[in-house]
Every structure is written in C-alpha cells, then in structure tokens.
C-alpha cells in the first residue's frame, strides 16, 4: 500500500466505498461442479495416454524378454541335444557290448 492510500481524503473515500452494494453470494456449487468437470476432462486424456503408453511399453518389454528367453532356451536345448548325441556316438564307438 502506498503513502497515497494513507491520505485522509483517501481513507475517507475508502469508508464511503464500503457503502457500495455487497457482492451477491457466489453460486459456489455450480462453479465448483463446472470447474471440477473441466479438471476431469483436462486430466482424463493424459491418464488415458499414460495408460496406453504404459500397456504398449509393458507389451514390448514382455515380448522382447520372452523372445530373448526363448532364443537362449532353444540354444541351450540344441547344446544339450548335441551333448547327448555325442555321448551316444561315444558309447557306440567304444564297443560297449563286448565290454559288458
């Protein structure tokens, strides 16, 4: 507040201004309902976008993870099969029947 506001004429004028019509009651319920509806509309698309993006990201992670795991499992199976084949070959080549 500036020094001008403390001038006696302005203080008297302030007293006079207090005689103006009072502001009517605010339609609080309507204003709050409209504001919250607008808030919901404003934030809803963002939430939907976040949910969609989250679902896509999760699908991608699961897909890539599953593929990598499947590939490694397949490689492991091939290695095991190769080991088993090699062992069988080894048994056959050692004439195990005569040894027994």
């Amino acid at each position, binding site marked *: 507040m500036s020094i001008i506001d403390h001038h006696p004429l302005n203080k*008297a004028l302030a007293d006079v201004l207090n*005689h103006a019509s009072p502001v009517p009651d605010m339609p609080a319920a309507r204003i709050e309902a409209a504001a919250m509806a*607008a*808030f919901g509309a404003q934030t809803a698309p963002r939430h939907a976008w976040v949910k969609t993006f989250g679902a896509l990201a999760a699908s991608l992670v699961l897909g890539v993870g599953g593929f990598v795991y499947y590939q490694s499992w397949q490689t492991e199976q091939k290695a095991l099969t190769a080991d088993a084949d090699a062992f069988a070959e080894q048994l056959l080549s050692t004439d195990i029947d005569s040894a027994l």
Partner: protein
Amino acid sequence: MSNPLVFDPLAGLIAKAGRGDRAAAADLVKAVSPKLWRVSWRLLRDAAEAEDVTQEALIRLWKVLPTWQTGRARVETWLHQVTTNLCFDRLRKAGRFVDEDQAPEPLDPGPMPDTRLHQSALRDSVDAALASLPDRQRAAIVLTHYEELAAKDVGEVLGISVDAVESLLARGRRALRLALAPEKADLLQASVEGHAA
C-alpha cells in the same frame, strides 16, 4: 537480471493438482473462486457473466497447470489478471468498455448541502459513481480497495507499472470524490479535520 522467486501459498496445491490430484484441485477452486467471483461481479455487475468469467478463469488455470512454473508468479495474481482481462473483453464485446480517454471529465458539483442520505440512496450513489469510472480505473479501485492487493500486484494484474497504478488510482479517486461529494462532503470534511487535529 532474473526475477526473484515469488512465494506462493498455493504452490503446494498447484503442484498436486498439476499431477492430476482432484482433491487438491477442489481445494484450489475453493480457495480462489470467491475472489474471482467478487472481482468479476464488481467489474461486470452481472451475476451470470461473473459466473461465466469465474469458470473460464479456472478452466484456463487447468490448461496451464502442467507447465506452471512455481516461483515465477503467484497463481492468485495470474488468476486476477485473467479474470480482469476476461471482464474487459466482455465489456468491449458488449460495447460497455469505457476507456479513460473516452470518459467524460467529472464535474465539480460545488458546495453541497450538509445532508445525509438514506443508506440505500448512498449505496446507489456509490454504485453509480463506481460504474461511471473508466474500466481500468474501476479495476484498479476494485483490486486495491475491495481485494486489498498491493500496488505492485495490481500493476502485474493490469500489465502496468506501479507508477501507472498510482496514477490510475489517483484519477479514479478524484472522479469518485467529485461524484460522491454531494453525499459525503460532510464525511470527507470531518475526516480531514480529524486528521488535522
């Protein structure tokens, strides 16, 4: 030079509402809407239009929430600015906006009889005197007197310097004193004498 950070008591609510917190948004509406309603009603003198302006100001707040930078400005000051501009826009569209250079110079009513009007007549006179002010002067008076904003904040709301606010207030007060002199000459005189004593 960068502006100093501005303390905003509503910063916490703004941050929460910006993250989508409905309860914080509701608290924010409760905190600011009565002020916006008062300013818009005093500038427009129309309840339906004041309601529209209050709602529009809040909708604009929701739009800027995600990018709101705490510390740059007080949200109430920003909302007062939006509300005042919306009121001015509506007054312009309705052809009711009175610029200062269009306003007639207030006439000095001369010596007034020492009479006290009935309360309702006085209220009508004060209302009429306020309504007769150019809109920016009325906004400055409303924000300073009724909303008790500091001149610096009024300057931010109206987009003018503090000196320009003081100038608006001085012209507004002069016009009001002249317009209200018939009713309040005795009160003004008593006040001056009281301070001189």
